């Protein structure tokens, strides 16, 4: 039971980051290999506040994710204002991600590569569920408002969007900021779940993993990436006996998605009660056909 609880919490912490990434990649259509940096900033920000300054947990979480948001505004201005093409932006952010990791390894307050041990452990199942629900609700309301629609328009055709009065830079910048906030929040939760953080936890692997969840889960969908995140955490656990071969799973999952479902598991669609009802209807119709 404890084992499943652990897996669930780890997956749910990832979900919070993935939701942020969904807004940036799935809805705005921009790619990043550096969002682990925002997770790291959120984690260190929150952990330092509770560890050295004895801040209350929730306040530290909020401030940690605000810090990640602030950094995103600083790094986002030159990279997004520069109107880099999608792949160039991804590489620029990859550089940023690595830079943040190296900075964390060399700062005094983060205690370098040794990391911060003994952080208060406050992230329990109810806490993570509340955080996740807040994240999902915020994302859902955002996506269905004019802000989210603008992002979708930018993803679909930036030139046309601009000619309909969508402010390109503002929309991308805002989406980047929101994604950093979510990643920061996820980092704060992570730090207060493990009770220990070190720079080596926030590498390119982490960035790739959340990006993979979004791409496999489906561009332009919120529910798809959430499902994909759970799959990506649970399935490797099932195949624990396969040891390092599990890493091949990630690669092949990405390749298989690209070949068989280029728009991802749930591309441009959402799972809702309505869609479940139609699925049920179709299944029962099929069942009736077989019976008769």
């Amino acid at each position: 039971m404890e084992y499943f609880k652990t897996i669930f919490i780890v997956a749910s912490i990832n979900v919070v980051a993935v939701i942020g990434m969904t807004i940036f990649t799935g809805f705005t259509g921009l790619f990043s290999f550096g969002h682990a940096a925002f997770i790291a900033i959120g984690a260190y920000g929150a952990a330092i506040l509770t560890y050295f300054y004895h801040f209350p947990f929730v306040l530290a979480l909020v401030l940690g994710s605000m810090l990640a948001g602030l950094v995103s505004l600083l790094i986002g201005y030159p990279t997004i204002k520069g109107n880099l093409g999608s792949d160039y932006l991804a590489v620029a952010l990859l550089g940023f991600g690595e830079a943040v990791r190296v900075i964390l390894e060399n700062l005094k307050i983060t205690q370098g590569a040794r990391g911060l041990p003994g952080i208060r452990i406050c992230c329990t199942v109810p806490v993570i569920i509340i955080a996740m629900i807040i994240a999902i609700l915020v994302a859902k309301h955002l996506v269905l408002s004019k802000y989210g629609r603008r992002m979708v328009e930018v993803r679909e055709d930036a030139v046309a969007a601009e000619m309909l009065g969508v402010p390109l830079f503002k929309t991308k910048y805002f989406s980047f900021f929101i994604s950093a906030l979510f990643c920061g929040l996820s980092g704060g939760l992570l730090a207060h779940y493990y009770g220990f953080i070190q720079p080596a936890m926030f590498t390119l692997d982490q960035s790739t993993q959340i990006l993979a969840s979004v791409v496999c889960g489906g561009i332009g969908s919120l529910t798809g990436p959430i499902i994909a995140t759970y799959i990506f955490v649970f399935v490797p656990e099932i195949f624990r006996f396969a040891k390092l071969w599990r890493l091949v799973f990630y690669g092949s999952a990405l390749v298989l998605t690209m070949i068989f479902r280029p728009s991802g598991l749930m591309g441009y669609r959402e799972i809702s009660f309505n869609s479940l009802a139609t699925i049920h209807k179709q299944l029962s119709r099929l069942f009736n056909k077989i019976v008769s």
Partner: protein
Amino acid sequence: MVLLELQQIEKKFGGICALKGISFVVNKNDILGLIGPNGAGKTTIFNLVTRAYDITNGLILFKGKPINKMRTDQIINLGVVRTFQNIRLFKKLTVLDNVKASLYHKANYNLLDALFRTKNYKKIERDIDKEAKELLREMELEKYVGIQSDNLPYGLQRKLEITRALALAPEMLLLDEPAAGMNPKEVTDIIRLIQKIYTEYHLTMVIIEHHMNVITSLCNNIIVLNFGRRIAEGTPENIQKDPKVIEAYLGSSTQKKKDEIAYA
């Protein structure tokens, strides 16, 4: 009343001079036709007016105000809207969402309204939905509301793009080859459509087109461009007889003979 005025426009792409010394005015409720061979710089003029490109030299005035330093969304706010030569719909979105995309331009609720779904947010969202559906009904597209826009036939995609532009409530509409790639029947349909929206929405229009029947049946004034320069201006009848225009499109017979001699 002068709506749009171009003064000595010049646009260079590196060493290539795409437009040079172009000046003209568009009066309110005019339909101006821009014609010329491929590469003459017609679309570049649209790109300069909506500031997709920066101007190299010259001045663009809309209602007397210079707009060549404004951002694209500010220019749209003033009421200048364009369509594209190659249709640029949001392909994966439904017909309704495409039209709504323009209406969100003036949705004035803030982030908190959106996050907490306040009354203000709900009212504006409802209004936008209603307005979009009304506009689609007027344009006889209401049958296709829920269809993904790239599943529409070509002619209707064109119509949808024009509808989407209209949703921005423009004063001036810049149409870039509205009849490109259409068969004769679709061309007559699009002419009728443009005439309809011209009278119903009190628009001023600039039309780029290669189909001469579109230009002659809609425009009261035509400007002919070639290699970035204006070579003629006038009514459809005058333009058709202008020797310079004929030369631009067909080449001059004497020049051709000289060339042949030179090659020999």
